[in-house]
């Protein structure tokens, strides 16, 4: 077990290094720099800024400096937000994104599991068709449309929930539903199709023939044996949900980290680009590691280590 963890840890570090290197190279070859403005800065002013952020050094030296500081836990200063470090920004925003992401995940699981179970159990009935219609809708409607629609209905027309002002109970509901809708729909689809396959297996017929109660057959035998594909997608899904969504944060004025995946690139805020990319990668690697551990819990035939 310890060997497995160490091996995965080394593997994770290697992935982080590759991602850091690729991101570093790609962002520097992308045209446009962090201090290009409509209002061009005089060369002497630009030279001072370049010296302050070591942008006047050869690229390889900048790369070395970045890795050295990264190892010491220093993600560098933001070029866009003067006097703020990337670590400060992440410390402020990641917990917000994580809270919203976990609530959305809970929403998605609460919706998708019952929907998939009923749809699979009542295969080809109106329950199945109705829930799968909603699932298809959930997958195909873009976030910003759903968000705007929910704001219009529940905020403007009914006045039940707030459209912005993150941090209050009434401002959390709409972004949670909007962010959780697509995963709920996707998980329902996935789980339903796996359940349908499992329900046709011999061991389910055997369980029923043995006279087991239907709830035991469905929940213990069918569901448990259908969870592997769902668990596989849950890893990346959790990483994506807890690092935030640009669209959701934009539409609902949520002060999370998701916005920086886009704005850091448009601003060419190099340390911020590196910071959010590496955090996302680290979370993805960790989530996949946990998923691998859970495989063996669900199915003892799979040995993670």
């Amino acid at each position, binding site marked *: 077990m310890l060997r497995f963890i160490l091996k995965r840890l080394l593997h994770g570090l290697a992935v982080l290094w590759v991602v850091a290197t690729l991101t570093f190279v790609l962002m520097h070859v992308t045209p446009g720099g962090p201090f290009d403005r409509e*209002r061009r800065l005089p*060369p002497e*002013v630009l030279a001072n*800024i370049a*010296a*302050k952020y070591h942008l006047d050094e050869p690229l390889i030296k900048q790369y070395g400096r970045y890795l050295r500081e990264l190892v010491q836990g220093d993600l560098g200063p933001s070029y866009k937000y003067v*006097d703020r470090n990337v670590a400060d920004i992440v410390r402020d925003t990641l917990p917000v994104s994580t809270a919203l992401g976990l609530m959305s995940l809970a929403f998605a699981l609460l919706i998708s599991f019952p929907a998939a179970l009923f749809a699979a159990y009542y295969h080809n009935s109106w329950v199945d068709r109705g829930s799968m219609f909603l699932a298809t809708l959930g997958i195909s409607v873009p976030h910003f449309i759903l968000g705007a629609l929910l704001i219009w209905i529940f905020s403007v027309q009914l006045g039940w929930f*707030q459209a912005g002002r993150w941090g209050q109970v009434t401002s959390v509901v709409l972004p949670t539903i909007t962010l959780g809708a697509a995963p709920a729909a996707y998980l329902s689809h996935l789980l339903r199709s796996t359940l349908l396959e499992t329900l046709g297996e011999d061991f389910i017929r055997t369980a029923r023939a043995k006279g087991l109660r239907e709830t035991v057959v469905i929940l213990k035998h069918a569901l448990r044996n259908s969870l592997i594909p769902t668990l596989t997608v849950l890893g990346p899904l959790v990483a994506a949900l807890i690092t935030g969504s640009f669209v959701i944060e934009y539409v*609902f004025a949520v*002060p999370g980290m998701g916005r920086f995946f886009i704005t850091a690139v448009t601003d060419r805020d190099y340390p911020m680009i590196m910071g959010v990319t590496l955090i996302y990668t680290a979370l993805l690697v960790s989530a996949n590691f946990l998923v691998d551990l859970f495989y063996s819990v669900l199915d003892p035939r799979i040995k993670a280590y």
Partner: protein
Amino acid sequence: MVGLTEFDKNLRPAPVIAKSWDILDGGKRILFHLREDVTWTDGKKVTAKDFEYSWKRLLNPKTASEYAYILFDIVNAEDYNQGKITDAALVGVRAQDDFALEVHLKHPAAYFVALTTFEVTYPQRQDIIEKFGTRWTAPGHIVSNGPFILSSWKHENEIQLKANPNFFLSKPAIDRVEMFMVDEKTTALAMYEQGQLDFIDNDSIPIFEKPRMAKLPGFKAVPQLRGYYYGFVTDRKPFHDVRVRKAFSMAIDRSVFPKILHGAERPTSSWIPPGMLAHNPKIGLTYNPPEARRLLREAGYPEGKGFPQVTLAYNTLEDHKTVAEAVQGMWKRNLGVLVRLDNQEWKVYLKKLKTDPPHVYRSGWGADYPDPDNFMKLFSSLSGNNDTRWKNPQYDRLLDLASKEFDERKRKQLYDEAQRILCEIDVPIMPLFTTTEYTVLNPRFTGLEVNSMARLILRDVKPKGN
């Protein structure tokens, strides 16, 4: 915060902390006399030393301020910023005593007092900055001198201000201001309509909602000192020929822009915007398709025949696309020339303007300070913002003379002459329109001002009837 001066209704610098100033030595020395009753929020007096420190900090190369160049007219300021001299005492700004600030300029600069309306020239406290380092702007650390005090700042979320009871021009009528950072316009508008907000501006009103907002009580349209123009890259054929540039400018009916955009853009054929000294609406090439066709014919392209493929570029944004398509249509209709449209992401676009410029490009300019110098210098030979690659020594000379001229009437004449070169004779650019800021204030309140540089002035906000 407040500084030495602020704009008055006519956009002239009016006294705030500076109660008066003397222009001495033919304009090369300015002596600001400061009020003695202005205090910081911790009770200490605002002194000339705070200005001297702030200006030298702005110029210090280690600060790496983007706006250091604003003070380059001061003796030795540029050399200090470039590191050619390291002794800040040699920079020509000095507190004569606690309430007299002396500024030595390299040359007379008629616009210099107007620069002191700009926030980067506001005073700063050396002791606070040295104590807190990069955290000096955090609530609880920062000391300020304006009508409100920063009481809470949740980054990317909200800012809270509370009234400063010791503000030297009397305590504001409202105790607290909350500001929310909302990127999405429809969300901000929903918050206003739900009663969560009392004030919204351009950033909170979607284009399609403008007509409805305009009918609300508390709606205001504030013309801005911001110009929108197309530049011709004058060393690229066929725009090296001034007749072609003139023809393209005269083929544009600028009156369409308010109709296809937000409704209150002000079409213009001259460059200095309305509201600014030396604005002259009579300057510039107006819509004249027959004359435009004649000029194009004279340049060797009758009815657009034989005209090479040219590109009009803009940075990716819906409004820019709308304008570009309208212009493309007018050039096709009036000149028989079909230009290719090209759009790019902002930073890529900026890079391309320098390295591989299109034939015609979109750009804009908003005033840092309300003086024509700030607008006209954009197209001087040495300007880093002059992407037209056009140079005219006569134009440069006129700007130089105007910047040193303290007689407003004579300044205006010099700028008129320079604007004629820019917009009628050489035509490296064609100004299209100036922009407008929309605001809606809850009718329960009054006194909130947004000035012509989109700055929010909260000092006089009060409940209606008070």
